[in-house]
Structure formats: structure tokens, C-alpha cells
């Protein structure tokens, strides 16, 4: 932002001194492609930002009563037609604290997504910074607490294992769709079920083993 403002100021002074017209193209390019654009890593975000530049960095913003937002009228974002510093400050203080996503042409849920992500990240950091060696109530160690949790709750939650012999037996009798008289592994979706069961059992075995390793 600093760099962009500095560039615009310099460019304006130069244009005024030389008596040439302001090059909005240069301003747009420097702001959206170079100064901010260099920091935006998502391609779609960049595209959107360049579009904002085209929309809001051009001559039309100097026309009287120009409004930056076209979609919402809770608050009209304008450049005040004043020359006093205090009037600008006054106007800025009336701006809403939270900008509605609609003024950027976004759905209201964009703000929700953003805030959810932000608070999610904050919670993750908080958990990360929690003391690891909690000698909490009763003086239990971390290992003891985990062991208790596993024995009392988690291990009991695990579903029973699928047993190979049982799978084979059941599959042999499993029918296919209407119109196909074959049964068992001659049916494509039954073969698929077999593969899913194997992969599921693999994960379940790992979970059961790590849980018993921990207690």
C-alpha cells in the first residue's frame, strides 16, 4: 500500500510538472500487477484484483457523486468533494467498521468463509502453543491422561474387524443388479466392495495397533 501510494504521488507530481495526462494504465499496472499482484499467489485472486484495478483506478472516480460501490446502498463509498483535511477525516470516521462483501461484488458468504478460516487458524495456533507437559489436576501426566481416554472411550468406539473368511463367504452369495444372474465376484460392484473392505480393514488394523501401543 505504501509503495503504491508513493508511486501514485510521484506519478501525479511528474504528470503535473510536465503538463502531461495521468497514465491510469501505468497506475493500474503498478498497483495490481506489481505491488499487490506480486504478493497474490492464487491465479483467480489475481484476475479479480486486476479487475478491481480497472474498475476503481481510472478517470471516472473524479466525476461528481462517483460511488465506488454499485451494488449496495447501506453506505456510499465516495471521495468527498472537499479540500480540508478535517472533512476527509470526518467522512472516513462515518464508514462502516466491517465492509460488506457486496461492495467488492462478492456473495455475503465470502465474509463468513474468510472469518471461519481466520478463527480456525487462530485456534490451531492456540492449541499449538498450549503447554505440552500438563501436570494438571491430580498430577496426572500427559501419557496417563491419554491412556485413560483410550481405555475408557476410544478403543470401545472402534467397530469390529472384518474377517477375511467371513468376507469371502458373504461375497459369494451377494447378488448383482437386476437382469444379471451371476453372483459374488463375477459382479463388478461386488469386486469393488471387496477392495473397499480390504482398504478399510487395513486402516482399522493400523488404528487398533497404534491405540494398543499407546496404553
Amino acid at each position, binding site marked *: 500500500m505504501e509503495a503504491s501510494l508513493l508511486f501514485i504521488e510521484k506519478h501525479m507530481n511528474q504528470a503535473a510538472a510536465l503538463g502531461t495526462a495521468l497514465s491510469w494504465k501505468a497506475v493500474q499496472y503498478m498497483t495490481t500487477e506489481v505491488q499487490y499482484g506480486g504478493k497474490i499467489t492464487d491465479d483467480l485472486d489475481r484476475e479479480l484484483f486486476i479487475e478491481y484495478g480497472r474498475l476503481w483506478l481510472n478517470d471516472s472516480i473524479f466525476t461528481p457523486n462517483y460511488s465506488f460501490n454499485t451494488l449496495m446502498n447501506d453506505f456510499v463509498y465516495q471521495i468527498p468533494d472537499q479540500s480540508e483535511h478535517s472533512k476527509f477525516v470526518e467522512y472516513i470516521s462515518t464508514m462502516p467498521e466491517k465492509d460488506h462483501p457486496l461492495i467488492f461484488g462478492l*456473495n455475503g458468504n465470502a465474509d463468513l468463509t474468510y472469518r471461519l478460516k481466520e478463527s480456525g487458524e487462530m485456534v490451531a495456533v492456540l*492449541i499449538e502453543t498450549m503447554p505440552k507437559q500438563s501436570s494438571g489436576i491430580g498430577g496426572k501426566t500427559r501419557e496417563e491422561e491419554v491412556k485413560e481416554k483410550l481405555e475408557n472411550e476410544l478403543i470401545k468406539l472402534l467397530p469390529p474387524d472384518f474377517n477375511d473368511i467371513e468376507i469371502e463367504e458373504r461375497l459369494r452369495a451377494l447378488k448383482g*443388479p437386476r437382469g444379471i444372474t451371476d453372483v459374488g465376484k463375477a459382479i463388478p*460392484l461386488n469386486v469393488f466392495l471387496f477392495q473397499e473392505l480390504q482398504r*478399510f480393514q487395513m486402516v482399522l488394523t493400523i*488404528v487398533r495397533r497404534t491405540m494398543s501401543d*499407546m496404553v
Partner: protein
Amino acid sequence: MTPDIVDSINAVSDFRVPRKWQFDPTGVEISWMTPGMAAWLKGLIDRHHQLNNWLFKERPQSFWLTGFFNPQGFLTAMKQEVTRQKRSEGWSLDEVDFKTEVQKEIIGGDDGRIEGKTLNPPPEGVLVHGLFLEGSQWNKAEKRFEEQVGKDLFFNFPIIHVSAESTNIVSN
């Protein structure tokens, strides 16, 4: 006590998913990605529920597509079945394509369970559910996407009937 076990204990203590449950030693994903351990274990139970019912009761009336390890493989197997059902009409596997139709019913929640729902499985193809829309919602009446209006970020997508159709003009 190995570093692996210490890592798992720290994870359980912080309600995170132990690394070994989600990745094999070479770093390949072996299960589903959830932010916390409770959601992961719920996923384990829900997946078991679907597979167990399919194996011990019957082929599900609608499949929880997102509860599979290999949904692509599921759809391919389905395509094979339809092609076989249509063998007498001259269909062959290299000349079929997917055909989908969005249904009216929505199976709510994120556990994929269909108990208590009356569904009418089609004679060909399968019903699938468990898909969500983000950034959009579905207009049931007009069968098209539309701008989100509610405050919910995710929209429960209706059941989809997925089947196959022949791309061979002669057999059509």
C-alpha cells in the same frame, strides 16, 4: 517408547489425528482428511456402517459416494454392470459414457446414512449421495445452479442417479 508412539500420544492429547492413521510411511494418504480426531473417528464408524450393511444385508439403495476410498473405481464398476445388463442390445464397454440425472431428494447430514429413507433404486445404474456444493446452491425446480442465499456455506446436493449410455449410434 518409539518417536511414533510419542507423536500419536501428543496427537490424541490435542484431539488431532495421529499421522499414522492418515499417511503411510512414504507419505501417501491412506484415509480421509479431517481437522480433528473426533470427526476422523466418526468417519471411521460411518464408513464401517456402509460397508458392513452392504456386505451383511444388501446392496445399498443409494451409495454414500464420498465414503469410499476409490469413488472413481466405483463408477467404473457401475459402468461395467450397466454395459453387461445391456449386452443383448449390443453395448460394449469402450462405447459407453456416464449419464447423470439430479434427483429431488436430499439425504441430509454428513454421515451418509440412509436408514428410514424410502428410495427407488433405478433398474440401471446407481443412486449416489454425500456430495456438497460450495459457493453455489441447487435450484430443484429448475434443475440448475443459483446464487447462495442462506448463511450456510455448504449446500447438501441432492441424490444423483448415475448410469451409463451407449455412444454407439447404431445400437441406439
